[in-house]
């Protein structure tokens, strides 16, 4: 339905996207006992770390190969080896995920080949699984980096098999970058409600959910256990949440013949219905558990209450493709009109299915302009959208990454029956918070003549 237009300007004003290596690092943080390692100069890592910490309000392990002027020219293979060695010494990680940056990729290094050589030679690294994804900053955004990292993880750790030996109660849940820890938990709850056991990958719900643990670790705490990733080969099915996870699901399908289903969006009644139907079929449950039934009934009621506010609502949204698509379609299904849609990456088929005429590949400058032109009533994007909200005097619903000027971003749940319900409430309440009292001028009427006005005077003493 929608056409992708690339904003035609040389300067990007107020970037919307976060970089691809950061997305990869975030995905790696969903593995238990891991340290993400950015291959590049140290600054990228420092920026990335601050970015992650501001969002999650957690210390985040993130390392760099610290390329300098010399290695920039000569190549950084030694830096990688040294980095792995040092990280192993200090943090004893079970997993190191490497993501390259623009600097390493502009040089055109064969990191994958060099890494293979290093790992073949350094058998002492064997206790740590090392995975690499090429994620130059100049191609795509956070979502693309995340997807590439997950593809790298499954390529390296899911064994290729000729024989199917499925565990009929296990499903693999591949989570896209747009899912918050609370959303992963909600999906897990739904899957379990059908008697199925989800293998979540990557799993931020244990590592970046915000908890006090009682000790200090130099690696991620919680997340998918490295040893369990191989078990994805035995799942009865792979459920890919977000179009971005299709690639990884395919890889598992190719390697281990696990059939895959992709759910581009799970917000709003119909998309969740589709997911529930799939779970019913997979588990052979003709009757869904009562909690699922009840949640659906409550979502229906929320829709009834919310549609007064969402009907005709002019929405401007800016986010990575999957998030934009999920929330955008859910609102359109509630009668809202998407007057501005801005996204970060051209690499996604869901862009074409957005319920609006055009999707802009651009920045928050474009977002502000398009929202103004489209006379938007509400803005939906991450915290950097506050500048646009300020300029346009519009409410801003903070979604995606980063959300740094509100706490509890990891707890926002906008999918499943329950999350959709919460999302509709959020929107309806933001709309109701806009102060507007009707004035005669709004309708072209004149106010009552001044002579009728009461003139206050002080009481005689």
């Amino acid at each position, binding site marked *: 339905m929608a056409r992708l237009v690339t904003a035609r*300007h*040389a*300067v*990007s*004003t*107020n*970037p919307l*996207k*976060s*970089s691809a*290596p950061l997305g990869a690092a975030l995905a790696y943080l969903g593995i238990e006992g891991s340290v993400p390692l950015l291959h590049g*100069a*140290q*600054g*990228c890592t*420092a*920026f*990335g770390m*601050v*970015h992650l*910490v*501001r969002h999650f*309000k*957690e*210390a985040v392990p993130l*390392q*760099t*190969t*610290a390329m*300098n*002027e010399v290695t*920039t020219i000569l190549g950084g293979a030694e830096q*990688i080896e*040294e*980095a*792995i060695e*040092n*990280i192993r010494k*200090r943090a004893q990680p079970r997993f190191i995920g490497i993501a390259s*940056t*623009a*600097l390493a990729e*502009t*040089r055109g290094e064969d990191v994958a080949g060099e890494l293979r050589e290093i790992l073949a030679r350094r058998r002492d690294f064997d206790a740590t699984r090392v995975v690499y994804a090429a994620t*130059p*900053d*100049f191609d795509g*955004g956070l979502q693309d980096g995340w997807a590439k990292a997950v593809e790298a993880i499954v390529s390296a750790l899911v064994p290729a098999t000729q024989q199917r030996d499925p565990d009929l109660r296990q499903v693999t849940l591949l989570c896209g970058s747009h899912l918050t820890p609370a959303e992963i938990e909600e999906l897990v709850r739904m899957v*379990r*409600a059908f*008697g199925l056991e989800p293998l979540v990958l990557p799993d931020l719900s244990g590592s970046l959910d915000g908890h*006090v643990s009682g000790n*200090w670790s*130099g690696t991620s705490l919680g997340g998918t256990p490295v040893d369990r990733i191989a078990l994805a080969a035995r799942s009865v099915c792979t459920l890919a949440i977000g179009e971005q996870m299709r690639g990884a699901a395919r890889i598992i399908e190719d390697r281990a013949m696990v059939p895959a289903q992709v759910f581009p969006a799970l917000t709003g009644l119909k998309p969740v219905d589709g997911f529930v139907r799939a779970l019913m079929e997979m588990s052979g*449950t003709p*009757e869904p*558990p*009562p909690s699922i039934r009840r949640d659906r009934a409550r979502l229906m009621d929320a829709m009834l209450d919310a549609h007064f506010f969402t009907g005709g609502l002019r929405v401007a949204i800016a986010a990575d493709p999957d998030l934009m698509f999920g929330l955008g379609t859910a609102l359109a299904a509630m009668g809202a009109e998407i007057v501005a849609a801005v996204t970060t990456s051209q690499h996604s088929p869901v862009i074409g299915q957005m319920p609006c005429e055009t999707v802009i590949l651009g920045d928050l400058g474009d977002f502000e302009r398009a929202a103004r032109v489209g006379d938007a009533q509400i803005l939906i994007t991450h915290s*950097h959208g506050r*500048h646009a909200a300020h300029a346009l005097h519009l409410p801003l619903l903070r979604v995606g990454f980063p959300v740094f000027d509100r706490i509890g971003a990891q707890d926002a749940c906008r999918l499943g029956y329950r999350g959709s319900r919460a999302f509709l409430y959020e929107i309806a309440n933001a709309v109701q918070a806009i102060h507007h009292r009707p004035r005669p001028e709004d309708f072209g009427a004149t106010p009552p003549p001044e002579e009728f006005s009461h003139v206050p005077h002080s009481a005689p003493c």
Partner: protein
Amino acid sequence: MSDALTNRIAQVFNEPGCATNTAKSEVSRKTGCTKQLTPGAAAGGCAFDGAMIALQPIVDVAHLVHAPLACAGNGWDNRSAASSGAETYRLGLTTDLTELDIVMGQGEKKLFRAIHEVIEAHHPAAVFVYATCVSALIGDDIGAVCKAASAKWGTPCIPVDVPGFVGSKNLGNKLGAEALFDHVIGTLEPETTTPYDINIIGDFNLSGELWQVKPLLDRLGIRILGSVSGDARYRQVAMAHRARVTMLVCSKAFVTLARKLEERWGIPYFEGSFYGISDTSDALRRICGLLIERGAPAELALRCEALIAEEEARARAALEPYRPRVEGRRVLLYTGGHKSWSVVSALMELGMEVVGTSMRKATENDRERVVQIMGDDSHMYENMAPREMYTMLRDAGADVLLSGGRSQFVALKALVPWVDVNQEKHEAYAGYMGMVDLVRAIDLALNNPMWADLRSPAPWDAPLATGAVLPAPQGACPITHIAAHPGQLPAALARPLAVASGSATDFEDC
């Protein structure tokens, strides 16, 4: 890397004005003050980051980052340098180089167009263009582009050549300052000058800290003419050569700039700090003293002393009510180490015990003062690994941590109060009243009743005195339809977590 940049780096490393540097041998001086970074064990920003930190507080300038997304995309809008006027500096502007731009060698052209768009859209006082790793690697000549752009559109375009890979944040601070010296300072003349004109270099006006001090200067009739610091205007930077005195705030990074101002324009400088009561007084005295040396009337000194006496008394009086609330509490101070002794002495004056202070960036001089104040050097740390700090805090080695954002969660997760005293902080702690605000913040952090609750045991930390006897589960599992068999579970002393009897339960609950 261009030869020009190599030379400039060599030059900024050889800084006679820097105490640390002059103490080094000839050989070690040549290697510069950045340590070789260890892969896998490095932390900290790059040179580009440093230059941005130094220059971004100039508020009416458009800061344009010539790079793929990472440099600006992950790092814009992340500091709280405050402005009393233009908001241009807050814009996140980048050429967002794509693969195509890089492969086709279109970086310079794109930059040129980007500068034009920025000037058209935002009418900045100047455009600062930052070169980064990738733009340097592909050989884009931002100097030439800036020159052409300045000539074409009349808005000064200043090249800041700071690819991240050349070194640390600190080096970037220096290179940023160099760019100002080479291209900006001395390019405009003020309408009038007074004997009370000063430069302030290196204060970033974080959360408005400069404004905590400015009233003091205002009362003395001292004018901030030139400023390479927070809330600065481009014109102020350009006119900095006409000030009488330079105050260098808490910053070794800008010492080269201050020295060059002295060499070329004869402006004496001193290093001072506005953190802590005694430091603030010292700084005011130094400013006035130097101004008088340079021709200001001698009565300034008297006015200065009167002001100091009044303000110190006021601050001490304002601090007194906090004494009972903070007395005897143990502070761990983990900052750059720079000049922290002034804060240390103020806290000790209030009866707090400083159990440790980091000296990572401190000079010999700073060390001596800490020893003087604290009696010995047993409480000085060079560097503390997060795990070490966590263990120390968890084992109640300190009651409160004062540090930068990096160690925030080390303290919080150890259930120890934390007060932000570094660059990203959101409170202002400068000057006399700033010290009061800092102590107030410490009080609030320390004495929040939440801590006692947090440290109290969880419900399951003590064993149950009595067990509950529950009936065995009934009904069938809704999924498998397998009936629960009463009697299979040990009936007595079942754990109090059990399915409510008779209800149709979810699978997840059974």
